[in-house]
């Protein structure tokens, strides 16, 4: 019995029954809604005599929109298929574009290809001064393109087998971090010239619904641009902030705690639409440069791109590597690899991890601020 089956068995004594009061409550709401509609209709007719009955609001899902203006290089079109104004929730729009085509990089200046830590930090510091970046406005969207590895042998906290399946995901997170949109994942083998016609799901419910607090990330108390931009750039002071923001998940050696706080921000955060100010990136690299136990070496991300890697050994048996783009100095991926054989005993038995086994692998292929969900940078 594995851990998922254990959870599934917990409290299964609870019977599959429902109270009649639930049906009564909904029935009362239905009656009230009919009465409300009737009253509203009467008021309308009274206010506008001679115009005939007010037209009933059409709530049936309809094609309510028209082709939106093409944005950028004609890579995006939106047609609202369903949903209704005034209702928070989800709606779907038609989407067409080239999901795997490379994005232009106009937001990050390059001063040459960095080959050492010192060069990387020097170049990214110059880049932060020249083009500091900006916060997305609340009505703008952060487009994120990612690639992740999966295994046909399954996953349960890590890949149980070879990373034999790679998927591309496109997502858009609104600047206020309270709405998101995405298209379904598709194989990474999709040719860049392939135009896909499908659907874009836009969500303003769930975590993005009323009362939304924005993106939450590990122990970080905030991941808004203004908060991140306010953090100290002095490495010692920033280390203290990072240690405090690692959250309860990450205990142990201070270097490990700080590394994982950076991992949470760059890896989980940027892949979830968090925009990290360039000057903070520069400061984070400085922290990594002087953090005991962190190695610096060349690295390759999931998409096969050559980069610079900051890595650290975690739990004594695997290495987590943060890969940085040597040309524009941004985060571009993460890789977890076992460095020695390891036996992991779980509730579903014992699994044997071999040295060299890839436990997790993902790449950030692009992040850009755009005006609308579904829009690709041009």
């Amino acid at each position, binding site marked *: 019995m594995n851990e998922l089956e254990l959870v599934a068995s917990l409290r299964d004594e609870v019977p599959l029954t429902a109270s009649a009061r*639930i049906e009564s409550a909904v029935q009362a709401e*239905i009656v009230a809604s009919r009465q409300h509609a009737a009253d509203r209709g009467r008021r309308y007719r009274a206010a506008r005599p001679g115009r005939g009955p007010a037209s009933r609001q059409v709530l049936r899902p309809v094609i309510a929109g028209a082709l939106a203006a093409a944005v950028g290089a004609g890579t995006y079109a939106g047609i609202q298929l369903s949903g209704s104004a005034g209702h928070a*929730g*989800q709606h779907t729009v038609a989407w067409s574009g080239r999901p795997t085509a490379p994005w232009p990089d106009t937001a990050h200046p390059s001063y040459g290809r960095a080959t050492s830590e010192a060069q990387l930090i020097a170049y990214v510091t110059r880049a932060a001064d020249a083009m500091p970046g900006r916060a997305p406005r609340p009505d703008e969207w952060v487009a994120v393109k990612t690639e992740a590895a999966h295994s046909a042998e399954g996953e349960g906290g890590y890949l149980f087998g070879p990373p034999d399946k790679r998927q591309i995901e496109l997502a858009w997170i609104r600047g206020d971090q309270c709405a998101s949109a995405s298209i379904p994942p*598709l194989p990474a083998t999709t040719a860049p010239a392939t135009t896909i016609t499908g659907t874009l799901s836009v969500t303003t419910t769930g975590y993005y619904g009323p009362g939304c607090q924005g993106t939450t990330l590990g122990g970080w108390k905030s991941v808004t641009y203004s908060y991140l931009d306010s953090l100290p750039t002095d490495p010692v002071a920033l280390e203290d902030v990072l240690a405090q923001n690692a959250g309860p998940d990450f205990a142990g050696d201070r270097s490990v705690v700080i590394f994982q706080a950076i991992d949470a921000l760059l890896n989980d955060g940027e892949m979830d639409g968090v925009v990290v100010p360039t000057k903070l990136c520069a400061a984070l690299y400085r922290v990594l440069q002087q953090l005991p136990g962190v190695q610096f070496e060349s690295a390759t991300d999931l998409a096969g791109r050559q980069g610079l890697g900051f890595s650290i050994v975690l739990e004594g048996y695997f290495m987590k590597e943060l890969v940085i783009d040597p040309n524009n100095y941004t985060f571009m991926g993460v890789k977890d690899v076992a460095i020695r054989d390891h036996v992991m005993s779980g509730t579903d*038995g014992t699994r044997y991890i071999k040295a060299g086994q890839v436990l997790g692998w993902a790449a950030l292929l692009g992040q850009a601020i755009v005006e609308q969900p579904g829009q690709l940078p041009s």
Partner: protein
Amino acid sequence: MSEGPPVLSHDQEVAWRASASAPPGRAPTADDDATVIRDSLSDPEQFAVLVHRHAAAITRYVTRRLGADAAEDVAAETFLVAFRQRASYTGDGRVCLPWLYGIATRLCHRYWRSETRQLRLLARTGADPVIEPFTDQVESQVAASAVKPRLADALSRLPKAQRDALLLQAWADLTYDQIARATGVRIGTVQSRISRARRRLREQLADINPGRMNEGDLR
């Protein structure tokens, strides 16, 4: 180790087009939840059909999370919210349960502290206040195996988003895609949350001897 991705045909590559809709080749029927919801827009009484169909499942899910005291109110409110928002329903045509589970999960957050407190009580004492109404007291005490309190402790420590995703998979039988739609996040985020939650559970339960574990350990 082979890391080369499989070569897929163009048809396979664009197969995601149909992902959010009814199963391919299957036309909507009058019994489909989506049809009932659509019909309820002009004839609200139709919505009662959905309540009749799904109230037991939603009640059981909420009861397992919060206990019987809060469950009835939360389950009823789930359907009231769904009724008010039914015009925006765009989910799977046949069964709207993922949508309802998503609403219920959101409403459960109001009782987050109570939910966590009950899990910690189970972890500390071995007695589960949630199942007490459904079992006699002696049985529920005897039920306290070594596994159950440890499991409750691990669940109580999960961040909110990870616990939601894990319980929607384990207790509501939702797929990653359905959880993504229910909670309004990307499928990759769901995978990450469940992956982290499972990894943490594996670590916290690692010293339990799998050879000695069977279904009875949880009862």
